[in-house]
């Protein structure tokens, strides 16, 4: 049983890393968070109810650790360096500059969001978790999930539009083309 849970945790690692990266905006911090999450989960395995979603439980642990850490350090927003963003993109040919700028705008926009909004963006938009599951993980009503998430997305959209011209253009252009 325990071995199977370990294997499911290993299987979850890529998604957990992505979630943690969206929260922290930093590769190393993300991996530290993932490691803390897995260790805490295994140490408190008796608190997980078999039959319930292990994934949800792990996301909850990750976000609890992150929120605690975040509170204790009293928020210091975007530490994303351009290097970070370059690492993310790799050497992807011709559109790399445009993509990188959009990417930077997205990660920096997310980094500036309040913690409780950032968590929801990471769960729903990055991880594809449903509103209902997110509400369950965080122990808040689904209406709260939707209002927080809606505000976060409006803010983020505004920052994408206001971002430097080169960055905003592809996003805005695509948004506009959708209008027609």
């Amino acid at each position, binding site marked *: 049983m325990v071995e199977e849970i370990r294997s499911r945790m290993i299987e979850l690692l890529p998604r957990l890393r992505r979630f943690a990266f969206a929260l922290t905006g930093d590769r190393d911090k993300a991996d530290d968070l993932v490691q803390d999450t897995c260790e805490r989960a*295994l140490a408190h395995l008796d608190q997980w109810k078999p039959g319930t979603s292990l994934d949800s439980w792990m996301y909850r642990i990750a976000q609890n650790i992150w929120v605690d850490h975040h509170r204790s350090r009293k928020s210091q927003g975007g530490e994303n360096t351009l290097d970070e963003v370059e690492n993310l993109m790799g050497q992807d040919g011709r559109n790399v500059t445009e993509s990188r700028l959009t990417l930077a705008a997205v990660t920096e926009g997310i980094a500036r969001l309040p913690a409780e909004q950032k968590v929801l963006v990471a769960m*729903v938009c990055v991880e594809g978790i449903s509103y209902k599951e997110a509400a369950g993980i965080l122990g808040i009503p689904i209406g709260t999930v939707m209002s927080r998430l809606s505000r976060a997305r409006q803010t983020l959209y505004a920052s994408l539009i206001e971002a430097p011209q080169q960055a905003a253009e592809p996003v805005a252009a695509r948004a506009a083309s959708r209008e027609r």
Partner: protein
Amino acid sequence: MGQVTDEILMAYADGELSPEETQTLEALLHRDATLRMRLAPFVVTRREIANTYEPTLDEPVPEHLVAAILRAPIPARDRPTRERKPAASSESESWLGRGLAAIGATLFPHGASLATAASVAVLISTGAVLGGWLAGPSAPAQEAGLIATTGSGITASGALARTLESTPSGTASATDANGAAIVPVMSFHRADSDAICREYRVRNVTGEPDYAGLACRADDGVWRVAVHVETPKATVVHTETGSQTYQTATGPNAPAVDAVADTLISGDALGRDEEKALLENGWRPASS
């Protein structure tokens, strides 16, 4: 739908509305440009955020994270001992050995993405102790058409798929065009689902490597490969006219495959008659 709130528009962009709500809203969107403008932020943010973080999934997972999971102490709860057919069992007691089992299992169950499988496979090949073992589909096997990587993961194809579907354990398939004979070694029920899994060996007469592996049958009849590793060349093979009988007891050990089987198996391997009944019934339980 009354007043269309931002939350409703967002739920539409996120695919959270019911079919009826979607239909109603789409009718409104069709004739209301202002509404479409209000929808844009949600569509754009969803897409741009997903695109931004998607590449993270394809990165190899750092080895220390896997090690942290494998090494963390087990709380004093369950640690059941399972009975298992001794035939080709070779228990691996190190955490790395157990890790292999865990990693092997990740290649198959619970809808693991191909990206997951690929990044974990990279990990295995970097493990010093595991040198020489190929986890995941190896290039030669892929060329021989026994294994395919599809959108739904790593699956058996060609002669391997046919043999798993229709050949009893202990019987070799006819040698295929590439000179490979496949022998299912045993079949068993998975512990965590109704699926049937079969362990197999692939013997190549042409000098290509031999393989051992394990595949489980999904509801759609596709055999999904949980583990597929290269093994030392077999030594004992009886050749009869036109077919080959494989001596499993003296066949090559495949600790990696056994370890994965141990994590998946429920009870013992299927008996000969039990397997025959299932095989003849398309791997479905006879009654029900």
